[in-house]
């Protein structure tokens, strides 16, 4: 269809073919909404930093509001500069002459940390996205990641003594560990899938409960059985160095491996192909959009539900594998909120596998920048967790942005660019909501 539309000029047709899957009206609109949601959450975060800076006690004001002369303890502009500039390792010179910092390379520690977060979020984001496409809310990626990470660590630790140390063994161990993570996470994800399909148990609740169960059971298992001797924290032994992803080009302390990021990109491509171009993926999408129609069309809805949740869990589990084999080198009790961040990533990406890449990078920047905020400012790093919630909230209310678009005429015009028919009927609905009050 997109080909016939774009036969006016050759250049346009090539471009259209490349972007065709993403540039129907709804995708363009989603993109616009995602960007607007990020900006709006940054604005609200700005206000939050200001207000809390007004309440917090400090001896000298970090920022004084123009015109009013009011002093604030936190400087919101500095916070965001540190957040975004710091996440990339300060490529931009702030305060110093010149736009760029001399001697900046992309292979710095901060940017490595950002990309490390990005890599992990690709997997958790894909995990949430694939479930969403099947019409399922997988809030349990966190638990699936915990289980997958433990399966990976235990598998690699068990297999390592059987193989002679070396790069070949490393490859074997990484492959086996990742497979174990996928199986562990997949099985953990299959539980809420089966409960949803065969007992009609709401997957939102069961996955959240299974997060608690996974965290607790894994903790006890490691505490009682697999704890490394002499370890002060609850953690397994380290997996051998040669079985971890190597930090090419980037400093070792950044816990980032280009190879893992590359793996993530391959997963994105694979999942995109699976969802859009295979019959199983088609079943998945149709049951997500219109379950009854899918069933009528011969799709086994129950089996599709279980499959989607298993696949989603497996992706979360692989995220856990990467966390063990790239970031920590072992399983340890305080696992970061990667699964919950994956929800934000997926929602920002409009649950489109391709969109997961920029969304994960953006969120990687937020997470990497949060560390810099902790180093350089007094503002609590929990700010980023608040931004996460705000972004989800704003992305969830497209109608808000449509209203703004209608008032200003900006959003409507841009949305119409994608295809001829925007929603001219929509304003009637929006007004109806107001008149009945």
């Amino acid at each position, binding site marked *: 269809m997109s080909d016939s539309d774009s036969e006016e000029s050759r250049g346009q047709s090539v471009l259209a073919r490349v972007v065709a899957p993403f540039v129907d009206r709804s995708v363009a609109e989603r993109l616009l909404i995602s960007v607007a949601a990020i900006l709006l959450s940054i604005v609200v975060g700005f206000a939050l930093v200001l207000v809390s800076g007004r*309440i917090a006690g400090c001896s000298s004001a970090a920022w004084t509001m123009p015109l009013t002369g009011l002093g604030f303890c936190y400087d919101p502009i500095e916070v965001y500069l540190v957040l975004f500039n710091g996440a990339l390792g300060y490529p931009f010179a702030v305060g110093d002459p010149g736009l760029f910092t001399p001697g900046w390379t992309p292979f710095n520690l901060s940017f490595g940390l950002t990309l490390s977060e990005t890599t992990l979020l690709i997997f958790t984001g894909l995990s949430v996205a694939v479930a969403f496409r099947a019409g399922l*809310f997988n809030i349990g990626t966190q638990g699936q990641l915990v289980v997958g990470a433990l399966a990976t660590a235990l598998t690699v630790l068990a297999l390592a003594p059987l193989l002679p140390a070396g790069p070949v063994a490393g490859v074997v161990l990484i492959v086996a560990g990742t497979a174990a993570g996928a199986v562990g996470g997949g099985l953990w994800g299959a539980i809420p899938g089966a409960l949803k399909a065969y007992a009609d148990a709401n997957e939102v609740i069961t996955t959240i409960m299974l997060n608690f169960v996974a965290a*607790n059971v894994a903790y006890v298992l490691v505490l009682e059985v697999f704890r490394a001797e002499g370890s002060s924290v609850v953690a397994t032994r380290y997996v051998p160095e040669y079985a971890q992803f190597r930090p090419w080009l980037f400093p070792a302390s950044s816990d980032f491996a280009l190879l893992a990021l590359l793996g993530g990109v391959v997963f994105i491509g694979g999942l995109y192909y699976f969802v859009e171009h295979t019959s199983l993926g088609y079943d998945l999408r149709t049951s997500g959009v219109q379950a009854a129609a899918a069933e009528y069309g011969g799709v086994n809805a129950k089996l599709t539900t279980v499959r989607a949740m298993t696949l989603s869990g497996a992706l979360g589990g692989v995220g856990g594998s990467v966390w063990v084999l790239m970031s920590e080198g072992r399983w340890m009790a305080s696992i970061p909120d990667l699964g919950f961040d994956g929800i934000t990533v997926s*929602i920002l990406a409009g649950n489109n596998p391709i969109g997961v890449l920029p969304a994960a990078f953006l969120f990687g920047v937020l997470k990497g920048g949060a560390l810099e905020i902790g180093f350089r400012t007094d503002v*609590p790093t929990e700010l980023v967790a608040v931004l996460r919630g705000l972004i989800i*909230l704003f992305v969830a209310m497209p109608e808000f942005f449509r209203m703004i678009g209608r008032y200003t005429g900006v959003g409507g015009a841009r949305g119409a660019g994608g295809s001829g028919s925007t929603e001219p009927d929509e304003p009637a609905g929006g007004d109806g909501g107001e008149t009945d*009050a």
Partner: protein
Amino acid sequence: MRNPLSPSSLLAGASESSYVRSLVVGTVGVLALLGVLGVAFPESVAGDLSRIVFSTSTGASTARLAAPIVLAGLGGIFAEKSGVINIGLEGLLIISAFVSVYAASVVGVGNAVLGVPALVVAFLAGIAASTFLAAVFAVVCIEFKADQIIAGLAVWLIALGLAPFMSTVFFGGVNTPNLGVSVGWQYSATLVVLATVGSWWLLNQTAFGKHLRAAGENPKALDTVGVSVSKVRYAGVLLSGVLSGVGGSALALSIGQFVGSGETMVQGKGFIAIVAYLFGNYNPIGTLGAGALFAGLDAMQIRLQQLGYAVPDTLVQTIPYVVVIVVLALVGRTQIPEAAGEHYETEE
């Protein structure tokens, strides 16, 4: 009176909407069995268990732990009956727990504002915070037609970030210092019972209750008789904010501290609340029973640890979550309001 354990009664309990009855029968049955075993074998685990179950301290901590679950659950009934699924109850509990402790520390325990004691001010502040967040949720869902599940998740995640953030701003750490006072379990129990009875009355005996149910089941009919669907839905969601606010404040003030690390001190009680009202099939009395059951399990594991059973505490803490999953799998099909989760467009 029929024998509650007779087959016909059990059969009736399994059919239709008699979840409440099967809940009561099940709980009473288990308790009775435990009591008999405890009396028969006082030296065994069953003996210890029955002593725990029937001890006053377990009762006290059950009341304390049940407050957030039951109150948030009652709130969830109002929201969902009106047609708005509020999955953000957890967030409402978190925010009210933090704000109540913050307010108490600002006023200073023992002081009073305009003759209102600090702890009452704390309660009111917690309720106000939770109601405000619920109002934001309501606007987002009703005015801007957001997906209710995603918006509810956002409410949870915002509170999960905001409470530790504010705690760090004010107190320099995600956990607040202990206030040094705590609200007794009697107050929690009284609040819970009052709220349950009040909710039952409001839902079943008033015109508002009828409108609420109509907004969730058949909004068009409600619209036809000239009642604003969105107003009723706003009321339902705001009520969920008020009740969750009471629950969250009661939870934090019963300890005198807000704990913001990890999943915060609320630890999924808001989600357990959802299961409690589903299990109670949207009946306040049933919600009270289910909430007390979940809280009782939690209280029991605390006592078991105190008695020195060599069960890892983390594992025992997992029991309520597993029970929730099992219950949800067994109850499964509840009678969710027909129009819950859907936006309603007024017709001109």
